[in-house]
């Protein structure tokens, strides 16, 4: 209680609330621009934090992270372009809703879910930092490999009509993830002499290419003189009935997001895909998933915003930055002489209390900021189609170039867009491919690190309790999805027989 009162006093007497709201607003803007990742949005603010007091600086950076994780969903829903990696799972149903003229509703669901996920993650951060930190510390390369396999296990659910094509798309994604320096020996693979490829291909380039550029390619052939989009230019929060329906996927998303957040390196992308998969598994409206399901927007959005809060656990407890954004935050802590670890909670308790209060304000402010910014975004996507597509193309070129100031990256996005168009034509789904790209490096590097540790003995995976648990859950996911597909196929065949007879 005394900490709580200290926190409120900090909020009233320092520019903490302003930093929280300003950071969240800046983060939303950064996250909404393809190419400006949460880490870039944070890094751009870093020089301004030198003159601030430590608490305000840390709140500003963390609030930017929270805002950016939410902001990624805005272009995902409106223009089929995930602003951040973690928003990739939101594209499927969010953009489908937008195409049905329900973009305002999808944005309302994503905003509402983001706030709930953020608050849940924050509560877990405050209440369970110590036990959650122990979970993070217990992770070995074997556990990370198993975590990657768990992420890949949802492929069957994301494969759409054809499991074979879904698996093939995932393998294509895994192949893309092998481009660059080998994770163990460092030898270049599939770089064809291009130094730009030595660091691998960032997943965001593939995502923007597959989703956004291929959509522009595809839409360029539509003959209908569709001068204006049919989206209702009004932000709509979910009704009471819809809120009840969304409760289950939001709870699943919150739980998945909490645990994925505390594992350094796991991040919001795996969390949002697993949450999407689980929401679909437990939904009473499975058939709506992929066609514009509100639950398909709520689950991943809750999960990746819960991650934004719980991802601070390994940073604050051990100084382990699990992502680029966490690394920037760690930089912010170190600039102000704050050394992460148990002593941070004892010696700088006011910074931690201020951080919690600042994050609380930042998460709540998403509602107000969203209500202010989203109508403008909806207005923008209702402009004449010729100009809208022209501006999206220009935004993609500018945003992608701004990541590394590289025209090579723009070329990769165009190539990925071409591949995406061909994938559409032959019916290969995008999401398994994205999952392969995102998880490929995690799986390979940790598989091989584990084998180095064991001298090539695969039994090492059976000696790690976390790996066993995660692999068991992955097996259950795979068997469950395959069983469900088989049941549906039998059901469909019976229906066809009924029709033909």
């Amino acid at each position, binding site marked *: 209680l005394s900490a709580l009162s200290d926190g409120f006093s900090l909020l009233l007497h320092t520019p903490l609330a302003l930093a929280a709201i300003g950071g969240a607003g800046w983060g939303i803007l950064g996250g909404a621009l393809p190419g400006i990742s949460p880490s870039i949005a944070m890094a751009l603010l870093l020089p301004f934090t030198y003159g601030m007091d430590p608490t305000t600086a840390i709140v500003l950076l963390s609030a930017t992270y929270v805002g950016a994780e939410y902001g990624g969903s805005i272009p995902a829903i409106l223009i089929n372009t995930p602003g951040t990696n973690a928003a990739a799972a939101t594209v499927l149903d969010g953009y489908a809703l937008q195409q049905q003229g329900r973009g305002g509703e999808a944005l309302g669901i994503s905003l509402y879910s983001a706030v709930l996920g953020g608050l849940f993650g924050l509560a877990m951060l405050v209440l369970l930092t110590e036990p959650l930190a122990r979970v993070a510390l217990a992770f070995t390369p074997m556990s990370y490999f198993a975590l990657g396999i768990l992420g890949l296990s949802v492929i069957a659910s994301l494969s759409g009509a054809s499991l074979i094509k879904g698996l093939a798309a995932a393998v294509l994604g895994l192949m893309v993830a092998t481009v660059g320096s080998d994770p163990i020996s460092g030898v270049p693979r599939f770089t064809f002499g291009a130094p730009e490829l030595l660091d691998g291909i960032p997943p965001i380039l593939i995502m923007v290419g597959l989703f956004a550029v291929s959509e522009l390619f595809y839409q360029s052939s*539509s003959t209908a003189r569709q001068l204006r989009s049919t989206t209702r230019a009004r932000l709509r929060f979910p009704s009471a009935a819809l809120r009840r329906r969304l409760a289950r996927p939001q709870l699943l998303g919150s739980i998945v997001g909490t645990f994925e957040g505390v594992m350094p390196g796991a991040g919001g992308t795996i969390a949002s895909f697993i949450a999407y998969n689980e929401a679909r598994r437990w939904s009473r409206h499975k058939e709506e998933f992929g066609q514009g399901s509100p639950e398909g927007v709520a689950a991943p959005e809750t999960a990746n915003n819960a991650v934004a809060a719980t991802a601070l656990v390994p940073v604050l407890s051990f100084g382990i930055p699990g992502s680029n954004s966490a690394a920037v935050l760690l930089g912010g802590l170190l600039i102000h002489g704050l050394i992460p670890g148990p002593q941070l909670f004892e010696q700088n308790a006011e910074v931690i209390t201020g951080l919690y209060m600042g994050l609380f304000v930042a998460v709540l402010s998403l509602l107000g900021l969203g209500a202010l910014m989203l109508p403008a975004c909806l207005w923008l996507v209702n402009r004449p189609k010729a100009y809208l597509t022209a501006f999206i193309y220009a935004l993609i070129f500018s945003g992608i170039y701004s990541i590394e100031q590289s025209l090579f990256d723009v070329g990769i996005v165009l190539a990925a867009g071409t591949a995406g168009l061909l994938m559409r034509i032959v019916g290969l789904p995008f999401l398994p491919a994205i999952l392969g790209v995102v998880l490929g490096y995690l799986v390979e590097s940790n598989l091989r690190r584990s084998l180095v540790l064991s001298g090539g003995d695969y039994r090492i995976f059976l000696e790690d309790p976390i790996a066993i648990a995660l692999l068991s859950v992955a097996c259950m996911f795979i068997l469950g999805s395959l069983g469900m597909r088989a049941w549906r196929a039998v059901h469909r065949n019976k229906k066809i027989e009924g029709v033909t007879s």
Partner: protein
Amino acid sequence: VRAGGTALRVLRDLACSAALLWVAASYYLAATDISRSALGDELGARGLPTAYAALLAALAVLLLAKASLGLLRRRTARAADAPEHGQPRVGRTLRRAAGVLGIGVAYVLAVPFIGYPIAIAAVISAMAVYQGERRTVRIALVAILGAVGFWTFFELLLGIPMPAPWTS
């Protein structure tokens, strides 16, 4: 992609399996070029790529088999197929997409010479014209305003150095 009938769907699967086989073979050949390192582990730098190539080839063969079976079952399946109307044809899709891709490639090639503001204005106007807009003055105004807006945001506000003319 008008793929209403089962025959077209089967054709699409056959094309897909052929493309996947080609990717698997090319990727495998490129994987054999990966040099071996003394620092390598049991699996080596080629290990997983080779496995991925084999897996993709196997999936392509499975898809081929499934598509062939689909041809045999065509009559049965036709009853349950709902034709997909209102989607553009593959040929037209590819032709139109090639134009959009061409605008993108032209941007990448030209931006080091003409600089970001002019190049991005050219992209906006070219795309608008390509999408059927015909009001020249309006196109020019929107392109100039758009380019100034993008340049102000990225260069001035974010401080990101966008391509200047004649940098290459």
